């Protein structure tokens, strides 16, 4: 991967929108990595949580939007709870999902879920799942 950094890339509108909608300042993060160290879903992620912020700091949002990581964040708040700079990463993840789905449509389609799942899952799982995986 080669990133061409420029003022336009670093200060791009998408990043600004993410900061605004999440209420988080990306440059507050100094990349200590504690979020990644404590994330219970990190093992399944292609980008670690700290790398999500890192790539956004570099204006490299495409890589982030293509990653599996943003869909694997369960908003469990473990990272935010421990972050030495108080960055609420789950808010950033949520905004990334929302923005992506606004463009590309829903991540899951209820009709396509297996009937077995539909029958079994508690209501709560559907509601939260739709909140997170549909626009």
């Amino acid at each position, binding site marked *: *991967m080669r990133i*061409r*950094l420029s003022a336009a890339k670093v200060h791009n509108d998408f990043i600004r929108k993410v900061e605004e909608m999440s209420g988080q300042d990306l440059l507050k993060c100094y990349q200590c990595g504690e979020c990644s160290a404590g994330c219970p879903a990190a093992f399944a992620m292609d980008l670690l949580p700290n*790398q999500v912020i890192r790539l956004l700091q*570099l204006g490299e949002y495409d890589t982030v939007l293509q990653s599996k990581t943003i869909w694997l964040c369960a908003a469990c708040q473990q990272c935010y709870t421990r972050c030495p*700079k108080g960055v609420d990463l789950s808010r950033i993840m949520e905004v990334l999902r929302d923005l992506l789905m606004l463009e590309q449509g829903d991540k899951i389609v209820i009709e396509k879920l297996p009937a077995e799942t539909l029958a079994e899952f508690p209501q709560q799982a559907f509601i939260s799942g739709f909140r997170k995986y549909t626009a």
Partner: protein
Amino acid sequence: MSEDKAPITRVLIIGAGIAGIQAALDIANSGYEVVLVEREPSIGGRMLQLSETFPTLDCAQCILTPRTVEAGHHERIRLMTFSEVTGITGDIGHFTATVQRKPASVNWDVCTGCGLCQEKCPTKVTSPFDRGMGKRKAIYTLSPQAVPNKPVIDREACTWFTRGKCRLCEKVCPVHAIDYEQQASTTQVEVGAVIIATGYTLYGLENLGEYGYGQVPDVVDGLAFERLLSASGPTAGKVRRPSDGKEPKQVVFIQCAGSRAPETAMPYCSKICCMYTAKHAMLYKHRVHDGTAYIFYIDVRAAGKRYEEFYHRATEEDRVLYVRGKVARVFREGDQVVVWGSDTLSGASVEIAADMVVLAPAMIPHPETLRLAEMFGIPANEYGFLLPAEDNILPVETVRPGVFVAGAVTSPKDIPETVAQASAAAAKVLALFAQWSGVPEAMGISVGADAS
């Protein structure tokens, strides 16, 4: 040296940067005489070249000039500028130092420092004080606030010396102070103790071909950038790149240029670069609001009071982008300077087409230091830094009794640490002098009955 002769309560301080000045003031203000030797025409050292200082952004001149002025006027401090110590004999209590003064070509006893000669001098040369960012005349003072405020003639630049023409300064000098025939002079000074505070200089970046220093005009070093930021610098504090005088909109700062590189340059960390680079990026953003600043680093070393907070301020308030990784190549393309680096956190290589690049070169001891080390019989390490008697608990003492060290001459240091060391060296000298002159007893001080 006769044993029964009373030891001399006068100190020789070599180097009149902030370390030498601080030690001189501490000792002179305690009632003892100081001989302060400086190789440049005026005192103040590196600190005088700085713009603003971290972490408070105090203007360096504002806080330093009171001290240079005080040292310059102090009745117990004898300034010997444009001079070098060329010999030392004797031992603690009875040193005799030979001080050689370079010919200034100006009779300082007569000169009033009016500045007319500098104004009229027709020859302009690149100013080393301004790190090549500006010009000075062939007859010059380091700055308008120089202490002492007396000019010298650069004989390599002056057309009278090079081509036998001009003598304009001589014509305009109202007090006839110009003396083209002036010779180097030698003085012997007798002192009881010595403090070596010859400071540092910067690693020759030309050796790091990959960074283009010396090849690409818009690649400068940190000290040059200080001059650009300085209100009294060549651009009066405006950030302008050397090639075309334009305001750079994208500036890349590269740390560890020659530091932490045992194979290619210096193995050690230069200690101050992380903080001054954060400051540079911050001040750049204060002056160029729509500019973008990138800092390539390996580790951010912000260990000091309010340093970590300062670093965070650079990123949060001034939106400086830190990129963790070393730069491999800097080259010119059109009117831009292209930087190839990497971001080891995202695992990506990084390319920036910048307008200007600022390198943070390794600090190295002043070349003169090795000569002094030999002369005084003080060990130096392989890079030329003097070694104190012991690392942890004798940081300003040396193996040579009566000879002390302070500041960057032993290793890279920032200003507060340098100042503390200077005062520490002063304390050692003061204790010696007090023992030799029996001061407290003479003043009728008794230990007194302590309550218990």
